[in-house]
């Protein structure tokens, strides 16, 4: 199973928390974060990071397209 992951550059505030915490998944490009690949092996820690992104800019979906994070 794989999840899809993306960063919405429209809402990203460039805090750098994601890239500073998990450089294997995120990197910093210009003033915004981006994902290194669009997919992800299921990882609870990344869900936590997406939940607590100050801009709620990290979107994670499962294979069916259901939104896993950010959770409200």
């Amino acid at each position: 199973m794989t999840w899809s992951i993306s960063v919405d550059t429209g809402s990203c505030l460039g805090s750098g928390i994601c890239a500073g915490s998990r450089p294997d998944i995120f990197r910093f490009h210009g003033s915004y974060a981006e994902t290194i690949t669009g997919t992800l092996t299921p990882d609870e820690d990344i869900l936590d990071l997406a939940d607590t992104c100050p801009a709620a800019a990290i979107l994670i979906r499962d294979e069916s397209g259901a939104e896993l994070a950010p959770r409200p």
Partner: protein
Amino acid sequence: MTAADQRVQDYPFNRPEGLDLAPAYGAARTAPGMIRVQLPFGEPAWLATRYDDARFVLGDRRFSRAASVDRDEPRVQFHRGSGGILAMDPPDHTRLRVLVASAFTVRRVERLRPRVREIADRLVADMRAAGSPTDLVEAFALPLPVQVICELLGVPAEDRHLFRAWSDGLLSTAALTAEEFARNDQELSAYMAGLVAQRREEPADDLMSALIAARADDVERLTERELVELCVGVLVAGHETTATQIPNFVHVLLTRPDRLAELRADPDLIPAAVEELMRFVPLGATSAFARYATEDVQVGAVLVRKGDPVLAAIGSANHDESRFPDAGRLRFDRESTAHLGFGHGAHHCLGAALARVELQEALRALLALPGLVEAGDPVWKTQMLVRGPRTLPVAWEER
């Protein structure tokens, strides 16, 4: 370029009184690489003064905060606190941070805005009832963030006089003895542990109760000591900086009547003004929380050797002309708002969204005071890690 090529300069550069950025930063930003500095205590360090270098060092995982624990960290005060999550690296850091961070996301904090607005408006009404002039710090700047963080965390705001003294002690650069510092630290922790014990018996709708529940769910995830340290960290960090930036922002605006008039004419500019003021005001009396290289890392022209500490000069980075043209001018129409006022990377300010809401609502409420002016010179803090007025006398037209 390596450490051996460089003369070591005494640091910090900034004077504690006022909000000026020391001219030495301008010189450092045009130097070929980073510069070497020596603080009053601890080992010498590299100092990143340019925007790109500072952001890189703060955001790159090869720079560690956890490594500072075993080193003689560069600092302005003799004593050292435990550091809490500021002395940890991912993934340990992330494990603790996310427990608290969920209470501080933009979505959650926006729900608090009406309550923040209510408190700000009530404080302004109290100021008007008591009459002009008054000290903005005691009457408004301190009680607003204290009330907000107390309600969010679950600490009785009536205890303000108690934890203010302890909090001041933790953030002070004064020459406290090791015993004084330790006693202060222990008293605040004991106070918080007492509140945690109460909340465990009687949970409420607050962050402390949520953390207690998280520990009950999974005792491996959060130790009792970490729980108390997190609450102390949220309480201290959650009010001192905002309480300092409110009078800083007001002072900057009242001494620039054109900008003040612009905001009064168009209050929709307040969010942009808060971002610009976060960039413009060099809050720190010094740079702190050195990052230690865990391997050799090239930073601009400098090869930082494994084990070397690097400090990021945030106030200087925020005045880097290559990133912020006309950096010395306060203007609310900048395209780039990517300032480093809340830091950057894994340790980016946990409470940034809450601070923004508080600062925006503070300015909005204070702008409603007609003819607001300074009624005397601010008296500046001199022995704290953050710079700002200890007292700021203000007057307004009573109508």
